[in-house]
């Protein structure tokens, strides 16, 4: 004989949960993950309509749209001219493309003696098996120097905008984080325990093998950053703060960029003054080869990994 069980016990049984899943009323996070239920802010229909009416009235009053005939005409003309400008731009660009040399042919002007020397003598002059790495870190190293500083300065601006400095603001950031992000999720933690070590290892491999095959500092750094973000998501800020704090980021990025600048200063100075560089090129194909390229890849990788992690942390909480 079946007995009627109390309501709370019934909710834990399999049949109740199956039925709820069938009907679509089951909340998969409730009871499993420590997270508040997300609800839309309470606003009745009248309040919403009143708010929208207020905004329209505000705009009309500021710009005086009923009486300002010229303003309306100007707005419309502005949009018409912008659309015409964009169409004109696309037509002009298509005309330019139709005039360009044909796609994928070897006789194009871009395939000239510059590319030829990079391919034919790149290996012996730079020591890198990956010709593109040799090009961006040796032949045209000045561009890459500027580019890593673009990343650095973007991080500085994100820090200016989003870093919470005072006690009050930090508390607010922590509370917001607890409100919207799950904590102690079983699936994430199990997956992270399995995945994060191989991801980090793979990232390190990409950085170190940048001159031996496809790879390099930028891609490897992005992969390491992704691994760190996964670790943070699974285990929370308390565990990540043990090895990655604000000071860590500041010091590692400063050391990496300083090392990069010094190495490149040496290289440019010896190059311009026609002095031979003392750094050996090694045998192509070995890890310790190609002069400064390995060191530069590591520096760039460190900067990019720190930057990716900093972006995520700043967007989420505003502090480390």
């Amino acid at each position, binding site marked *: 004989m079946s007995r009627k069980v109390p309501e709370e016990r019934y909710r834990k049984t399999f049949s109740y949960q199956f039925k709820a899943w069938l009907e679509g009323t089951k909340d998969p996070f409730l009871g499993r993950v420590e997270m508040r239920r997300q609800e839309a802010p309470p606003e009745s229909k009248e309040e919403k309509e009143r708010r929208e009416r207020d*905004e329209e009235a*505000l*705009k009309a009053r*500021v710009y005086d749209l009923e009486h300002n005939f010229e303003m309306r005409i100007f707005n419309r003309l502005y*949009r018409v001219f*912008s*659309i015409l400008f*964009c*169409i004109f*731009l*696309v037509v002009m*660009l*298509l*005309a330019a*493309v*139709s*005039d*360009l040399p*044909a*796609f*994928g*042919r*070897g006789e*194009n002007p*871009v*395939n000239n003696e*510059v*590319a*030829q020397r*990079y*391919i*034919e003598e*790149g*290996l012996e002059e730079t020591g890198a*098996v*990956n*010709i*593109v790495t040799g*090009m*961006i870190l040796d032949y*045209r190293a000045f*561009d*890459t120097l500027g*580019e*890593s500083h*673009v*990343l650095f300065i*973007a*991080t500085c*601006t*994100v820090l200016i*905008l*989003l870093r919470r400095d005072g006690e009050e603001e930090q508390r607010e950031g922590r509370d917001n984080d607890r409100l919207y992000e799950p904590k102690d999720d079983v699936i994430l933690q199990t997956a992270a325990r399995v995945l994060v070590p191989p991801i980090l290892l793979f990232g390190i491999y990409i950085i170190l093998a940048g001159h031996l095959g*496809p790879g*390099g500092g*930028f891609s490897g750094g992005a992969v390491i950053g992704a691994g760190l973000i996964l670790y943070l998501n699974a285990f929370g800020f308390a565990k990540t703060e043990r090895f990655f704090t604000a000071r860590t980021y500041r010091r590692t990025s400063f050391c990496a960029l300083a090392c990069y600048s010094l190495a490149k200063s040496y290289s440019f100075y010896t190059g311009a003054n026609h002095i031979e560089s003392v750094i050996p090129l090694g045998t*192509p194909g070995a890890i310790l080869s190609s002069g400064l390229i390995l060191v530069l890849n590591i520096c760039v990788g460190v900067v990019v990994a720190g930057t990716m992690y900093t*972006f995520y942390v*700043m*967007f989420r909480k505003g502090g480390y």
Partner: protein
Amino acid sequence: MHWEYLLNNYEEAVAMILFGIGFSNLLLQKNLIKKIIGLNIMDTAVYLFLALKGYISGRKAPVVVDGVTRAEAYINPIPSGLVLTGIVVSVSVTALMLSLTIRLYRRYHTLDLDEITTRLKREGK
């Protein structure tokens, strides 16, 4: 101006149309997030165009295999390096624009730039 060449160079034509779409989104959309998406489309179109410049049909990627260093065996490596630089720049400015959007939203609770201007005009001239 030979318009039939467009049918041959159709990859580059597509890149230009994408550039136009991204540009008009960045210029004309009102929502900030859509503007940022337009910016990304525009930049990606430029990188597509640049990467197409390097391709030569029938040749391989520029990583030296088996010691072959003849110039006829590999595609042009220069555009690949330029695209690498460009992608990093694009990521940086996207992060910057998104943080600006977050700060603006926290303060004004709207993603519409014109509405923010209106409110600023009212707040205090």
